[in-house]
């Protein structure tokens, strides 16, 4: 994923400021602070490590599997996970879950959220950046307010709307469509949480494109829509990629909305882990560790791919 973005590098002084008067104490400072900050985080990182290693081991690890600790490294957990054998329910009969289907469900939700967020905010971001219309300022202010506002606090009412809408949907599309509708609604509801921030971010990306580029196209005879599609969109591609990644991760990691709105039979990795841990003997945890590791992979991949962008977007005021 080649996300080479035109980002402001560091502060105004940038990296060039490396060798100033500061350097007097640099090395000692680096050492002391580096150690302190590192030690603060080390326990958590160690937990991540143990989780990942446990997924390759015959038992949950409480320390590193050094030679002689009697821990066997194995792929059995992953095999069981992909065969859907998560835990023995009664005797030797396993409850089976189709893990591939679960992954697909998670993907569908994540990609759905991505599509909705990107489409809505790429359009609205352009309007807020470039178009004059009545209430522009007020509306943007309202959207920022929503960004600060905790959307989850409204989940009861959002569910009430969902329940209310089930009637008409059942009538229109039939009973069998309800599971699909639940996915659809989950996606929209979850995407809405991301929308205010995404619009603001996207507006920022549009703001960076010089006006002259747009005018140039308008003078050449392009319509507003053509300008948006053929001139501006290609130039905010990095922004769209960034937004898509954030939206994807939001949909990918979601637990609450998926749990509340999705049909109970439709599991994602989050609800799958939730359910497995809740109803499981500890001995079978390594399989869950494998599921957790699997669940973590896209996050880590995007995490590494976006780095600086991530840091910048966060400092632009992302929910914390």
């Amino acid at each position, binding site marked *: 994923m080649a996300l080479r973005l035109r980002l402001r590098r560091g502060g105004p002084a940038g990296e060039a400021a490396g060798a100033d008067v500061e350097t007097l104490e640099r090395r000692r400072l680096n050492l002391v602070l580096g150690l302190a900050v590192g030690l603060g985080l080390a326990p958590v990182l160690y937990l991540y490590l143990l989780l990942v290693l446990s997924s390759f081991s015959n038992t949950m690890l409480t320390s590193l599997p050094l030679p002689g600790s009697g821990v066997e490294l194995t792929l059995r957990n992953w095999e069981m996970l992909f065969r859907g054998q998560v835990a023995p329910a009664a005797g030797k009969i396993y409850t089976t879950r189709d893990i591939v289907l679960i992954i697909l469900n998670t993907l569908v939700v994540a990609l759905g959220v991505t599509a909705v967020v990107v489409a809505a905010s790429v359009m609205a971001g352009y309007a807020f950046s470039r178009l004059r219309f009545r209430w522009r300022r007020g509306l943007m202010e309202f959207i920022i307010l929503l960004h600060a506002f905790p959307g989850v606090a409204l989940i009861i009412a959002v569910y009430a709307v969902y329940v209310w809408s089930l009637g008409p949907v059942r009538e229109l599309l039939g009973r069998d469509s309800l599971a699909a509708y639940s996915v659809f609604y989950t996606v929209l509801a979850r995407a809405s949480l991301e929308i205010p921030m995404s619009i603001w971010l996207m507006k920022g990306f549009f703001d960076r494109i010089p006006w002259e*580029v747009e*005018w*140039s196209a308008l003078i050449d005879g392009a319509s507003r829509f053509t300008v948006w599609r053929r001139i501006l969109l290609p130039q905010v591609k990095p922004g769209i990629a960034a937004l898509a990644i954030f939206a994807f991760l939001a949909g990918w990691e979601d637990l609450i909305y998926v749990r509340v709105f999705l049909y109970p039979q439709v599991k994602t990795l989050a609800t799958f882990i939730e359910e497995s841990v809740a109803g499981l003997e500890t001995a079978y945890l390594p399989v869950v560790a494998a599921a957790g590791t699997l669940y973590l992979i896209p996050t880590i991949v995007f995490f590494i791919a976006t780095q600086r962008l991530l840091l910048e977007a966060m400092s632009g005021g992302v929910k914390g």
Partner: protein
Amino acid sequence: MVEVRLEGVSKRFGRVVAVDNVSIVFEDGRFTVLLGPSGSGKSTILYLVAGVYKPSSGRIFFGDRDVTNLPPKERNVGLVFQNYALYPHMTVYENIAFPLRLRGEDEAAIDRKVHEVARLLHIEELLDRRPGQLSGGQQQRVALARALVKEPDVLLLDEPLSNLDALLRLTIRGELKKLQQKLGITAIHVTHDQAEAMSMADKIVVIDRGRVQQEGPPLEVYERPRNLFVATFIGSPPANTLPATVEHRDGYPLIRVAGSLYRPGERHAAKIREAGLDRVVVAFRPEHARLAEHPPEGEDLAFEAEVYLVEPLGRENIVTLEAAGMPVKVVTPPEERPSGRLYVVVPRERVLLFEPETGLSLDHL
């Protein structure tokens, strides 16, 4: 091709008056330069002509056509922006072809026209590159090509040379002018570089604080500035200005400047009497003055001054002197090394007189 006329055009941004009741005629097929300092409203005028901005009041005509409320695409203008505004995601070819594609021309025609204009501007070998891979001068040519390819009635150029290095600027100046003559297109060129304006323009329009200060052929603007602003804005170094008082001897006004008396010509004297002035501003161009050991014979303007600084520029020296506490610059031949107390001498036909309150030239009063 077409003549462009602004009639009483103003443009306000909130409280800022960027363009203030401006009337200009940009003649058909001529090269007109809008010259003015930064923030004077030059770009705004250009954007008004292009249709990016709508005037707050006044009307804009292309020939007989009132285009005041027409959107830009119906005006058939080509605009080269200060920062070129090339589309970074398109190749040079696609950039140039874009206006034609929007018009829905067929690919064969597009291909022919793009190559034609590319040949004209010597950028044929760049067609496959993207703007990011071009130098400033190359980008400038691409922007120009994109503006020209649609055969506009009016070519608008917003400081297109300001991002180029000094040498390239000189070359392109000449090329641009030649190209315009060849195409016979109406061109409006914006710059704050007075040398560029002098060398390229058929007509210069000097703008300051949103108003037209003077318009006319370059030499006229240079030699007969209408007001103090134009006198000091044009020329390098700019014209010297010295405050002076008027003394009447036998009913004839004499001007006391830097301790000396100067007897103005009949025409100026009449103006001074007419307006009842007791103060004027005396101005002259550094290149019109010379330095002398002794006060000259005759009635040229002459006053004593002390040499303060000599800047040798190779082709000439710029000498800064101090006369009655005022700095005065004089351009001298390179071999002269003046020092000490000298006389600054200005031929009387080169002496400019201005009314101190309004800054207007007595010639234009």
